[in-house]
């Protein structure tokens, strides 16, 4: 039995080693599905790798889960979009530093015939109130992601407690939620990047955009050296600094999907 166990361990570790050798220096980055699904990392990470020789392994999850992964010390760096959550993360001692990296915006998507008439509204608050008044089907991420947290704040602004048959919490990522909205002909709030890159729109179309409250800021965080001494803090700092450097900011600005710029660099 002991022999088998050591055999098992040898097999597993040799496998782990085999896959580690060809990427000697790497960091694990916990980030959000919106950045991964839009293809941003495919565009900017190779430029960083060329400049520094450091590989970036992206684990793309919802912002809530990304915080959790970082809190447990399973990622070297964090790139998410929930500024108040990020500040709390620093206050609680999990991260040491935060920097603005880029922004995009949220857009309201819905069926082309727009039964709640939100395309004529003047503000996001009005648009959300119109959806609630009409009790038009709305699909929510419902997964404690950055987008979900922003959406819940917007309902609060509109003075609506989203509840009832028309409000569907899916507990899914942005892409799956858009798939469901397309199938149900429902309203949905999406980040612009995922929407532009999304390939299964069916009857859905962009109905409302441009209100300042739909602004969506992304931040990069460096994790606490005290709490997680084993992490690759030096490499993570190089990544963090590159993101907010002129080269990194330019790489973000140059990323286009279908000719459209999806992320706007705004590091200070």
């Amino acid at each position, binding site marked *: 039995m002991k022999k*088998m166990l050591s*055999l*098992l361990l040898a*097999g*597993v*570790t040799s*496998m*782990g080693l085999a*896959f*580690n050798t060809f*990427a000697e220096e790497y960091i*694990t980055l916990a980030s959000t*599905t919106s950045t*991964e*699904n839009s293809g941003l990392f*495919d565009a900017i990470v190779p430029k960083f790798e060329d400049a520094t020789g450091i590989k970036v*392994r*992206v*684990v*793309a*999850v919802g912002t809530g889960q990304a915080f959790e992964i970082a809190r*447990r*010390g*399973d990622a070297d760096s964090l790139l998410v979009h929930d500024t108040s959550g990020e500040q709390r993360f620093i206050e609680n001692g999990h991260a040491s530093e935060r920097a603005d990296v880029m922004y995009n915006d949220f857009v309201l998507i819905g069926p082309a015939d727009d039964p709640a008439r939100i395309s004529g509204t003047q503000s996001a608050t009005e648009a959300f109130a119109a959806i609630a008044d009409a009790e038009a089907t709305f699909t929510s991420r419902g997964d404690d992601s950055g987008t979900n947290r922003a959406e819940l704040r917007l309902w609060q602004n509109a003075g609506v407690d989203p509840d009832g048959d028309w409000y569907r919490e899916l507990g899914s*990522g*942005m*892409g*799956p939620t*858009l*798939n469901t909205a*397309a199938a149900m002909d429902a309203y949905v709030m999406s980040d612009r990047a995922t929407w532009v*890159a*999304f*390939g*299964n*729109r069916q009857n859905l179309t962009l109905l409302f955009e441009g209100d300042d409250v739909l602004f969506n800021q992304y931040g990069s965080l460096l994790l606490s050296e005290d709490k*997680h001494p*084993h992490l690759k803090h030096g490499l993570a700092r190089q990544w963090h600094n590159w993101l907010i450097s002129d080269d990194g900011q330019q790489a973000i600005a140059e990323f286009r999907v279908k000719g459209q710029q999806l992320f706007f660099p705004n590091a200070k």
Partner: protein
Amino acid sequence: MEKNNNAFDVALSLLLNLDASLFQIVALSLQVSILAVLIAAVLGFPLGAAVALWRFPGRGAMIVLLNALMGLPPVVAGLMVYLLLSRAGPLGEWGLLFTPGAMVIAQVVLVLPILAALSRQKVEELLGEYREQFISLGMSRPRMMPTLLWDARFALLTILLAGFGRASAEVGAVMMVGGNIEGVTRVMTTSIVLETGKGNLPLALGLGIVLLFLVMLINAGAYLLGELTRRRTG
């Protein structure tokens, strides 16, 4: 270029173009699942045979447990292995989280009960047939085990394939402990989830067809192997 909307065309062009990243994904899927099934077989078949051969207190409970664990949801296996391998967990020092090694461990957890439970049943059946012979030969239980496992080898091959099916088809466990990292831990099933999320449904289904095709190839190979050896040994 005209956008390709037919999943079968997508699957065909994926296979014909031998896309490098697809090749890597397929190779990793096979490596992880085959290694997991082999490790589970080395542990699970002797375990199943031992439960069939020996009488010990709690044996009934053990059999029920093994049978029940055949239905363990992959995402629960993934969560358990995640908590184990996470830096904040007991085996965090190993640094295995988000590596193929972690995916192998999670799949071993999923496949082991299937191999142990089904081989236990098969070996017990055989033991019923062979018991008198064993007694007349004065064979001890540890000596019976290899004989029984060897004579059950064709059934064990089928059980192995059932285990492989479970491993190659699941997505919940490898997604959680592997993280679906491009070029490192991305496998067929996690790519299908990713492409579905991007709304690339034909590509997602095309990948599914490629996966099905591979699993069929492996099953056909195992079937041929079984038939050939059966014929040779009579």
